[in-house]
């Protein structure tokens, strides 16, 4: 069949056949007050020439600043081979496999992705990916409610140290499905959740506890103690983790006595460029006992009637096309291209390369913190170990300082006051293996200039 849009004559003939005069009349069962007249916030159409001009202007403002901003998306070195391979036609044109078993190459790639993510997290099963870290976190909360059949409350404990966007996405996705997200405060001295903060929930019916590692402040949570606290009370543990950090840190599958039940995170650090915020991908893993509550696609390895190895979508009875309204999730797709890049990235680096990347990022972050806290008016906000981000306490509000740094071509970090009103003098900074000592020196000098008359923070 040729791909030719309907002509006006085609449309008129179809309308006549069903006895309707205008296409608009097909929607008359929707009450007028529910219909949107026009979309606010969506600008008028531009032609191709105008769009080309606009995007090249925007491109000029991209990627020039020297960035010390992390906060959920991280600049890592991506070997040129990653996208050279990922953009080959065989991978680039293949979206999620709808004629799944005809796409053996795509299925094999997803299978290998799942295998590597499962090994990285120390968990038993991984799915084919989610939209991003925030959607994976929201879906993990919904999954925990299905999986924890002893709990009736659908109450999810969420430390304030979980990424603020993930917390908002979880509420937006799941609050209308009856889930209640309850914020657990952090220790203002250490920047982590102390077990004592959970004491008030000791005797309550709680479904799941989120544990970020590292947390939004870059700090390392006491994951073993928190995990064991939860499991002793029949509470499932959802780990929200950075995949690069897992090359060095204890994987969620080994947290505490029994390990986390579900582990999710943002996959962007694995070979996906910052790209103005997306597209990224989320990953999701779990203990095998929860696999039937897991959303998204899962690829399995099998053999055909002749005994030859093959790959197939599996456990599909969880999905919409079979379970209809009772499907585990309305997500039954995966982030094909970004996952392709991540799979190639992980295969190229291998466990040792990933560990070296993580160690280099950690070393650069320490170098950055050491350099910046030598300045008057700058100190570490929280004590204790970090991965590749840290919170600096300044002697003044952060926003004007960031503006001054931007004027010097430096993206200085995140003003935490925008998300945590009590931290309006606090700046979240990040350095990965891509920052050099010269970069850090440049930041130190610029920050010193941006803090005239500094006094002890």
């Amino acid at each position, binding site marked *: 069949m040729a791909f030719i849009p309907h002509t006006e004559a085609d449309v008129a003939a179809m309308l006549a056949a069903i006895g309707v005069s205008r296409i608009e009349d097909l929607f008359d069962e929707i009450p007028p007050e529910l219909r949107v007249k026009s979309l606010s916030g969506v600008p008028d159409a531009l032609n191709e020439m105008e769009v080309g001009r606009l995007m090249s202007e925007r491109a000029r403002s991209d990627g020039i600043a020297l960035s010390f901003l992390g906060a959920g998306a991280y600049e890592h070195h991506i070997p040129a081979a990653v996208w050279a391979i990922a953009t080959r036609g065989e991978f680039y044109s293949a979206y999620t496999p709808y004629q799944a078993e005809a796409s053996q190459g795509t299925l094999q790639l997803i299978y290998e992705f799942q295998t590597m993510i499962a090994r990285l997290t120390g968990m038993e099963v991984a799915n084919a990916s989610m939209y991003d870290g925030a959607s994976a976190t929201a879906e993990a909360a919904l999954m925990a409610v299905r999986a924890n059949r002893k709990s009736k409350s659908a109450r999810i404990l969420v430390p304030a140290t979980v990424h603020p966007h993930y917390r908002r996405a979880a509420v937006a996705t799941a609050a209308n499905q009856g889930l209640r997200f309850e914020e657990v405060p952090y220790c203002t001295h250490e920047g982590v959740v102390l077990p004592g903060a959970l004491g008030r929930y000791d005797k309550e019916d709680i479904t799941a506890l989120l544990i970020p590692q590292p947390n939004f402040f870059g700090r390392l949570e006491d994951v073993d103690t928190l995990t064991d606290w939860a499991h002793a009370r029949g509470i499932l543990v959802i780990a929200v983790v950075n995949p690069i950090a897992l090359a060095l840190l204890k994987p969620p599958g080994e947290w505490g006595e029994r390990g986390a039940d579900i582990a999710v995170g943002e996959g962007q650090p694995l070979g996906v460029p910052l790209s103005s915020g997306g597209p990224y991908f989320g990953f999701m893993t779990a203990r095998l006992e929860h696999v*039937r509550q897991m959303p998204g696609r899962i690829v399995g390895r099998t053999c055909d009637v002749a005994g030859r190895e093959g790959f197939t979508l599996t456990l599909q009875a969880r999905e919409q096309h*079979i379970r209809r309204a*009772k499907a585990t999730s309305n997500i039954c797709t995966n982030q094909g291209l970004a996952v392709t890049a991540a799979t190639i990235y992980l295969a190229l680096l291998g466990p040792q390369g990933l560990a070296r990347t993580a160690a280099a990022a950690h070393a650069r972050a320490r170098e950055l913190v050491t350099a910046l806290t030598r300045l008057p008016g700058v100190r570490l906000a929280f004590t204790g170990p970090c991965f590749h981000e840290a919170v600096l306490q300044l002697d003044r509000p952060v926003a004007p300082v960031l503006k001054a740094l931007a004027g010097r071509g430096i993206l200085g970090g995140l003003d935490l006051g925008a998300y945590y009103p009590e931290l309006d003098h606090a700046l979240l900074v990040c350095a990965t293996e891509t920052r050099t000592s010269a970069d850090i020196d440049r930041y130190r000098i610029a920050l010193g200039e941006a803090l005239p008359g500094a006094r002890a923070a």
Partner: protein
Amino acid sequence: MSNLPADLKYTKSHEWVRALGDGSVEIGITDHAQHALGDLVFVEVPEAGRAVKAGEPCAVVESVKAASDVYAPIAGEITAGNPKLAAEPEVVNADPYGQGWLMRLKPAAGALAAAGLLSAADYQKVLDSEGD
């Protein structure tokens, strides 16, 4: 002709009910249902202590080609889910009226009489009308 033990009661949604001596009942899916589903790969049974209404979905049987809800035939309180099925769902295919039972339930007062359960002969008529 399906395998329909005469001492059991049945529902139109293909569950069977066996009266146990202590006033509680045992519930499973019929031979017809297991055959229609095909090889079961997963069975989810309810937790003991859960109160169910008649007609409420309370278990899931999943085969290689479909997943279906199992409905409580009678209002009451679940006293047990069959623990064997988590590891051996295929027991439901092999022995649907015996070891493949799904749950036990203590009917609420008057609920058994109100449930409108079918005899084997009446259930056979349901199957005949479905073109079994």
